[in-house]
C-alpha cells in the first residue's frame, strides 16, 4: 500500500511538475542543470543507468576541438541504449539507425550545464508504424524523466 501510494504520488508529481522545455516544434528536449559540468555528467550517467539503459560511449567533442586549436568549454555527447531494443529497431527499420543508439549532449554554461536531446517521437516522421510507437513513446518519456531529474539535481 505504501509503495502504491508512493508510486501514485510520484506519478502525480511528475505529471504536475515535469515540464522539460520543448523548444520550437516540440522535438528538442532541453534542461538547465544547476550543477557544474562534472557533477551533471555524473548525475546524468547514474540516472540513465537507473532507467535500465547502458552507456555505450561518451564522445568528447571539446577535446577534438581543443586539439585542433579551437576554444571551447566542456562539451560531451553520451550515447546509451538497451542492446535488445537497439538491435530490434535497427533490424526492423534500418532507416532509423542514423538515430541509434539514443544520445544526450551536455555543455557547460558557466557554473551550470545545458543538457539536451532530440525527442525520439520525431522518428514517427520517418516510420509511422503502430508497432514502433509504443517504444518511441517510452524512450521519449524516459528521456523527459531523465532530464527532469538532472534539472532538479540540486534539490
Amino acid at each position, binding site marked *: 500500500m505504501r509503495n502504491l501510494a508512493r508510486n501514485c504520488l510520484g506519478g502525480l508529481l511528475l505529471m504536475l*511538475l515535469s515540464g522539460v522545455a520543448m*523548444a520550437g516544434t516540440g522535438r528538442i528536449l532541453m534542461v538547465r542543470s544547476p550543477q557544474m559540468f562534472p557533477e551533471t555528467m555524473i548525475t546524468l550517467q547514474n540516472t540513465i543507468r537507473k532507467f535500465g539503459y547502458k552507456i*555505450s560511449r561518451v564522445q568528447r567533442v571539446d577535446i577534438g576541438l581543443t586539439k585542433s586549436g579551437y576554444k571551447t568549454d566542456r562539451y560531451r555527447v553520451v550515447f546509451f541504449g538497451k542492446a535488445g531494443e537497439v538491435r530490434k529497431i535497427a533490424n526492423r527499420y534500418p532507416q*532509423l539507425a542514423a538515430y541509434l543508439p539514443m544520445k544526450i549532449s551536455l555543455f557547460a554554461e558557466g557554473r551550470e550545464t545545458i543538457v539536451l536531446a532530440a525527442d525520439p517521437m520525431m522518428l514517427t516522421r520517418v516510420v509511422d508504424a503502430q508497432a514502433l510507437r509504443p517504444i518511441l513513446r517510452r524512450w521519449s518519456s524516459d528521456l523527459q524523466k531523465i532530464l527532469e531529474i538532472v534539472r532538479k539535481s540540486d534539490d
Partner: protein
Amino acid sequence: MKRLVLLGMLLFPLPLVAGNATGKVLYDQNCAVCHGYDGHGGVGVPLALPAFLSTVSNDFLFSTIRNGRPGRVMPAFRNLSDRQISAIVRYIRSWQPGSEPRDSAVTIRGDMIRGGKLFKKYCASCHGDRAQGSPGTGVTFSRPRNLPIMAPALNNSGFLKAASNAMLLRTITQGRKGTPMPSAASMGLKQKDIHDIIAWLRHFEKRHASRKQEKESPVIVQESSYDLKTTVNNVKQAARGKNFRIIRVQYLDQGLVEPGKEDRRKVIIYFCNFNLLNKALALDPRVGLFLPCRVTVIEHKGRVKVVSINPTMLSHLFNNEELDRMCKEMKQTYMEIIEEATL
C-alpha cells in the same frame, strides 16, 4: 490512502491558484534552460536587466512568449494557457517590481527610406543590414564571440508583433544599460531620426515572414551497389576526399553488448572537420548533438544501405534560421559522400 487523496487535492489545484509560485515553477521548467534561473541569459538573452524590464510592457512579454521569434531560437509557447503565460509574466516582473512602463499609443510618421539609411549607418553593425540580428545565441559564453549579448533580430515577425511603437521609441531613445545597445543620444540621433527608423522597421511586418514548415524526411537513405566492407571503405575515402578526418569506425551496438558479440553488419563511421564544427557551434551550441558527422552502413536482408541524418531538419528543430545555409551545405556534402560510396 487517505493521505494520498488529501495530498492529491492539495496538489491538483496548484496550477489554478496562479501566483508567483506557479509563475516560478513554469518559468523554471520552460524558460530557465535558455534565460537562466535568475534571468541572466544563456542561449537566450538576459531578461532580468532593469533596463529591459523598465522599457517593456507585460503585453510585450505575453506576446513574445505566446508567439516566440520564428527562426530566432526563441520558441512559441502555444502549449501554455493564457493564465500560465500571465503567471510567468508576473514572475518575471517580480524581479523588478513596479518596473512596467505605461504604454501610450504612439503614431509613427517617419520617412521609411531615410530610416533604412540611418539604420544601415547606426544600427546594422550590430543588428545586421536587414535587421536580421547578429549571429549566435543569447549570451552563451562557452566560446569566443563578438558581442557579449547577441543583437536581436528586429525584422522578426514575432518581435514586431510584440513591440508597440512606444516600446520601440523608448528602447531606441534610452538604449539598454548593461548591454551593448546604445542610447539614441549617444549615437547623435534625434527624435525625427528614430521615427524614420521605426517606420523602416515596421515595413518588415508586411513581408511574408512565416517560415515554411519542414516537409523533408529527418533521414537520408541510399542503397549501395557494393558489399558492406567495400561500402564502409568507400564512405571513408569519400569523406576524406571532402576534407574530413575519419575519427572513429565502430559497430552500431558496440559498448552495449559484450566485446566480440557486436552485430558486424551495422557499422558507424564518424568523420569531422573541426573548422566546420567550430563554426556550427558558434551559431548554435546545441547542434553538437548531431556532430561530428556520421554515416551508418547496414546490411539488411542481403542488401547494403547507407543512412544518415538529414541536416536540413536541424535549423527547424532548433528554430534557428542562422543554421539554414550551413545545414543545406551539410546536406549536400552528405549526399555527395553517400553517392560516391554507393554508386
